[in-house]
């Protein structure tokens, strides 16, 4: 508020009860002793000025300006500016004998409310005091009103600002909440006292907590022991001003979790608490161990094929020796004949093993081509039809026409023949074999071979693709069949999986339709 707002008021209570304030009045360019004495009589303190420019010399506050109309007949720019400036805070009253004396410009200023106007008549009639009182009073009331209005406006503005700020805060909270919720891992914040400040729903799902509000509780009371132990250690470390985070692997409820805690510091560097992330890494671990397992098998495979390779020379020599020795008359009968026969048979057996191993490790990709999947399976079925065990097996085909597979046809036949033979063996020659060829969502072709045999026991399921794993009697199978199947399918850029429950075992091979890796 301007300092020029009047400290003045005239007899606010005409009854004389209230205080009487002396108002300072600037009287500019008015040479009217009658008016001055009238004002003086009415306890107004009058400061006479001759020009508008002299206002600048007045150093103390005043409450009203009385201006001679003659001064505004043709006022200078500077004067007009000064008057406008004045009128902002102080009532301005123009004194004129009659309104007609005013220039059109001054009249406009009166009509638009910049100036009040008093006439000589009002002075003559002794009405001036009442008029000035009214102006001052009005100004005061208006001033208060303006003040109140301004307060009210300020309030509205603040309220609006508050709403906007709240909206912003809300939005920010929304963003943070959705970040917290959509973080694919468990997120937890505890303060240095161990009170939970934040816990996202993922944490609750991961740890199997009921969906309650846990904020404000101590973490010990909420989290499973293994997790609580870790946080306790981390909290202690971070209170000891050790600033580091470490990861820990925790096994819990059959799943494997990775937990990481990070110290949260405030702007001023003080410790706010711990930010804890919890990931479910069971799947990753499974894949990693599978990968490790595969790599191990690959290494063993390379070693074995090297050994097998080197065994061929001595085996062929042993065999050649004994083949010739058996032709000697000494070896016609008796224990020597028996021994030679046994040596020959056993060396052949070794050779068979060596050859299957080498076939297993040998990759032949040179006869790759695009084949009609249905034709490959039908060809396979013609071979299996020659096996006696197939006589009483019903074969159902669900072939989606026009689907192809890319790779070596004879190896594919080998794979499917193997799976189909296993299925027939599993069903003990009696049952239903369902072969489906469908479009894979991965872009390739999926071949499902299903039997309704007793199923693969859970405990051997993880080993069925391992080399040398067999459930058949010794001598009946080398245990390389499914290992070869997997090798062929993987080398063809595809994947083979098996699912089994009693009464339904499905081997699903997914193969690409182009030279490349599907999976």
């Amino acid at each position, binding site marked *: 508020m301007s300092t020029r707002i009047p400290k003045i008021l005239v007899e606010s209570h005409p009854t004389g009860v209230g205080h009487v304030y002396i108002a300072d009045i600037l009287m500019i360019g008015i040479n009217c002793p009658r008016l001055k004495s009238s004002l003086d009589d009415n306890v107004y303190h009058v400061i006479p000025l001759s020009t508008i420019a002299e206002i600048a010399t007045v150093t103390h506050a005043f409450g009203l300006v009385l201006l001679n109309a003659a001064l505004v007949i043709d006022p200078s720019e500077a004067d007009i500016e000064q008057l406008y400036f004045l009128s902002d805070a102080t009532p301005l009253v123009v004194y004129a004998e009659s309104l007609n004396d005013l220039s059109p410009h001054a009249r406009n200023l009166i009509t638009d409310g910049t100036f009040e106007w008093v006439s000589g008549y009002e002075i003559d009639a002794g009405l001036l005091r009442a008029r000035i009182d009214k102006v001052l009073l009005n100004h005061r009331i208006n001033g208060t009103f303006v003040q109140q209005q301004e307060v009210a406006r300020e309030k509205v503005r603040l309220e609006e600002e508050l709403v906007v700020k709240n909206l912003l805060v809300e939005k920010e909270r929304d963003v943070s909440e959705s970040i917290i919720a959509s973080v694919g891992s468990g997120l937890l914040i505890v303060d240095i006292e161990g009170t939970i400040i934040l816990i996202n729903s993922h944490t609750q799902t991961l740890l199997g907590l009921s969906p309650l509000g846990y904020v404000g509780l101590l973490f010990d009371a909420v989290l499973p022991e293994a997790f609580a132990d870790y946080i306790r250690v981390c909290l202690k470390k971070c209170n000891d001003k050790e600033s580091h985070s470490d990861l820990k692997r925790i096994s819990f409820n059959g799943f494997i979790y990775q937990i990481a805690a990070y110290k949260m510091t405030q702007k001023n560097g003080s410790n706010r608490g711990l930010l804890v992330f919890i990931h479910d890494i069971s799947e990753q671990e499974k894949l990693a161990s599978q990968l490790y397992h595969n790599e191990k098998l690959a290494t063993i495979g390379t070693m074995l094929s090297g050994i097998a390779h080197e065994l061929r020379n001595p085996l062929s020599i042993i065999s050649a020796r004994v083949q010739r020795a058996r032709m000697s008359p000494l070896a016609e009968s008796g224990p020597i004949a028996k021994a030679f026969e046994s040596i020959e048979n056993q060396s052949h057996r070794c050779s068979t093993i060596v050859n299957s191993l080498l076939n297993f490790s040998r990759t032949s990709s040179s006869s790759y081509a695009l084949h009609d999947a249905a034709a490959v399976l039908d060809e396979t079925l013609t071979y299996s039809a020659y096996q006696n065990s197939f006589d009483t097996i019903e074969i159902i085909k669900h072939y989606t026409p026009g689907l192809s597979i890319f790779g070596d046809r004879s190896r594919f036949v080998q794979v499917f023949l193997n799976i189909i033979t296993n299925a027939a063996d599993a069903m003990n020659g009696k049952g239903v074999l369902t072969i489906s060829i469908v479009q894979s969502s991965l872009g390739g072709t999926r071949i499902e071979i299903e039997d309704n045999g007793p199923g693969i026991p859970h405990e051997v399921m993880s080993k069925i693709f391992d080399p040398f794993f067999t459930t058949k009697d010794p001598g009946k199978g080398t245990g390389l069949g499914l290992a070869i199947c997997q090798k062929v399918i993987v080398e063809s850029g595809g994947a083979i999986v098996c699912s089994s429950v009693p009464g339904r075992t499905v081997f699903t091979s997914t193969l690409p339709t182009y*030279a490349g890796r599907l999976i």
Partner: protein
Amino acid sequence: MNKTILVVDDEEDLLDIMHDFLTEEGYSVHVALNAEQALAKLSQQSFDLMVSDINMPGKKGYELCAIVKKEYPLLTTALMTAYDVRDYISMAKEFDIGNIITKTTPFNFDEVGALIATLLSKNVFGLARYVNGKINTLRIKNSDEIEAVMHKILDWMQSERDRRKFRAALGEILINAVYYGAQNERGDRKDVWKSNVDLAPHEEIVISYGCDGEKVGVAVTDQRGRLTKKDVLYWLERNTTRGEDGLAVGLFDEHGRGLYISRESIDRFIVNIKPTITTEVVMLNYSEGLYDGSRPLWIYEM
């Protein structure tokens, strides 16, 4: 006079066996433990044939062959290995080697004997050299007869395993004999080949087939002799060498793959060529499990 053979191998045991066996077969046999010894023996007397192991300490068998080819151009040579011949195809192409005998388990004395005999006699043609049983003969004079001949032979086979193995190989070789051998069609223009093509008046494709106790054999002969050892080795090499993508470099070749696939699908794949006179492809399949494993490389170009 007995034919003289030099056998080179770093395995004394094997030399001993080969010496005894080949001596019994009526040859005069000498042995050497390495390339140096072999070259020394060659400089002392003349031989009709040298059979050398591939993987020996010092000079390898094919390096020895290269020296021999230069210094004794008239000496017939063959290599021998217990390893997988497919690993040596590049080497064979590089050193122009057509004959690699395999040491199998059981040791295939009959085959080794037969191969050595053909090399020495230079008389390589005829299924009877490989099959000790009755040989039947069929003839093709028109390309439309291929299918019928194929079915006749496949139906004649007793075992489904033989049928399966011959199905791919036989079709391929018959088509080759008619279209490349007799008609001289271009392999990269299969789209313009015509069916129902008559062969020249005095020309025919002869197919002989037969079996003995341990194997089934089919031989296909044309009367042009257009195939060369170089071609066969080139195609085999294209299909056994892998490119950076892990696939055979010849995977997308217009032709030549059929020959490789035929060789892969059948136990023995023998090519005998008398340039401009005749090409004979002999395919043998042993009873299951017998002489499984490595297959000899047998391309004989007179």
